[in-house]
């Protein structure tokens, strides 16, 4: 039945569907391509009508101009350090707390869990000024630690980990380990951690990309170009009155390429991390 229906279907609607999806794909990809084109062209190419849409030969020259403006590699490295540290710390905090909420009984457990979820409602800008002063009083302005400490808070991580651990770590396994005399921390380390590794991949991607792209806090804490993360460094490229577009987009291009490569390799993981994070 359904096969007959399929065969009868007019091909026009299929053509329309494919055209619509192809157009959507092209529009999604075009800014990436355009960024590459501009990164390879002199700024003057910008004045031509119709606009240039083929790559030129200034890929290296433009990037050299970027290096004159910002400390590109240092900034990338700073971002990697911040993202990696925050991701590891968040994974540990979330899995420990998730384990506690999923498997232990203690007074006020549910109230505390709800409290953690409620902290998600506080907009990050509300505490911005005192946070800035706290960081500056602690001598952490213009340091990467000052950036990181705020990102260690990740209620969503605890929520996801609790879900995952209560679903996938069997109570019997924990009971058995306890009878064998395992301490709770040993259970966490040798039973819970191996089981939650797949969930670590999901949560890790969520945290890493969120911290990579965050701007307001990094922009507030980091004023010294020496410690700029890549986002702040890139934003500073656009802060002069007359901007060299080729140079500007060269910086954006080289800062985006690593992420695009990682994404293309792990695209399924990236995409499922969104649904795991949002739908659960």
């Amino acid at each position, binding site marked *: 039945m359904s096969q007959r229906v399929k065969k009868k279907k007019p091909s026009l609607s299929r053509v329309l569907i494919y055209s619509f999806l192809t157009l959507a794909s092209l529009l999604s990809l075009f800014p990436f391509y355009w960024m590459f084109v501009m990164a390879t062209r002199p700024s003057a190419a910008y004045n031509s009508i119709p606009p240039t849409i083929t790559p030129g030969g200034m890929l290296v020259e433009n990037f050299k101009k970027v290096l004159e403006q910002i400390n590109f590699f240092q900034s990338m490295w700073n971002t990697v350090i911040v993202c990696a540290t925050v991701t590891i710390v968040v994974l540990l905090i979330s899995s420990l707390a998730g384990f506690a909420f999923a498997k232990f009984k203690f007074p006020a457990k549910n109230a505390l869990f709800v409290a953690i979820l409620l902290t998600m409602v506080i907009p990050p800008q509300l*505490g911005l000024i005192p946070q800035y002063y706290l960081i500056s009083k602690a001598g952490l302005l213009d340091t990467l630690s000052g950036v990181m400490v705020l990102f260690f808070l990740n209620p969503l991580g605890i929520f996801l980990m609790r879900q995952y651990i209560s679903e996938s770590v069997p109570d019997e396994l924990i009971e058995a380990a306890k009878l064998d005399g395992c301490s709770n921390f040993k259970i966490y380390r040798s039973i819970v951690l191996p089981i939650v590794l797949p969930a670590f991949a999901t949560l890790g991607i969520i945290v890493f990309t969120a911290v990579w792209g965050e701007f307001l806090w990094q922009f507030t804490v980091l004023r010294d170009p020496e410690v700029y993360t890549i986002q702040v460094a890139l934003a500073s490229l656009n802060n002069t009155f007359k901007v060299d577009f080729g140079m500007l987009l060269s910086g954006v291009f080289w800062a985006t390429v690593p992420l695009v490569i990682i994404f293309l390799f792990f695209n399924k993981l990236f995409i499922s991390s969104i649904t795991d994070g949002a739908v659960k």
Partner: protein
Amino acid sequence: MPSTKVNLNKEKNVPNKRYFSEEKKDMISGYMYIAPFFIIFALVGLYPTIYSIFLAFQDWNGLSPMEFVGLENFRVVLMDDLFWKSVYNTIVIGLMGTAPQLVIGIILAFLLNLGFLKFKQFFRVTIFMPYITSMVAVALIFSVLFSNHESSMANYVLGLFGFDPVDWATSEWGTKIAISIMVFWRWVGYNTIIYLAGIQSISNDLYEAATIDGANKFQQLLYITMPLLKPFILLTVFFSTVGALQLFAEPTVFLGSSAFTRDEAMTVVMYLYRDAFRLQSFGTASATAVILLFIIIIAAAVNLLLTNRLGRKKRSAK
């Protein structure tokens, strides 16, 4: 003698004692394992939040001693035309940037789920890809695509359709439209993926039954997909609303050096940032933060109300 006594005791109490101590151990572990979050939260979350509310009632430039001024800061902010302009800008950009996403996102998700579709993974990956670029990167790319130059890509395309060039970086609607388009571009794939997950959770039997009853694809989208997708739609509406009210990076980076001196695209968070870190007026900035909290709470409450109503409808339908 004492040793046997201990032994006896132990034997007698083993189950009882062990049970009790296990329970206590679990309790201690439980609190210890959740402690890191609460300690960090108390320090960099709760304390600054409360302090912000306190600051909202003080006059303070960061250096001189604070002075209690009651509701003066709120009065100053609420009487400031620029504040209301920023609220207006935030709402307009928020609506233009997010509302079309929901419609296009649902259509894309529905199409991506069609059984006969080939290159599914390719379409999915490309449509999702904008999401992995950072907001700063998006804003910079779009600042070039949508520049004031007559030869900018956006103005060239407008020209093809016979329109005059637009001052994307300096005009009232040009800035708003350019920023809305970049918000749309970055997030539509993200929402599509969420809708797709929602659509995939809908049983295929329903579609098959509808096909047998002669419903076409559009009717199926309207009468099966849409109603069952409602929880997912509300979720994305909630995320989009809260996110849109906090818009900062895109306009700030897009406008570059004129970000805090022009008002065409100044959002509430930019207004707050400008008060605090450009004008050193921490009291009014904190008052703005508190007002923003109220705006977000109201928006969230409206969302929650919708969710509740939906839940009730479902239950009564059963």
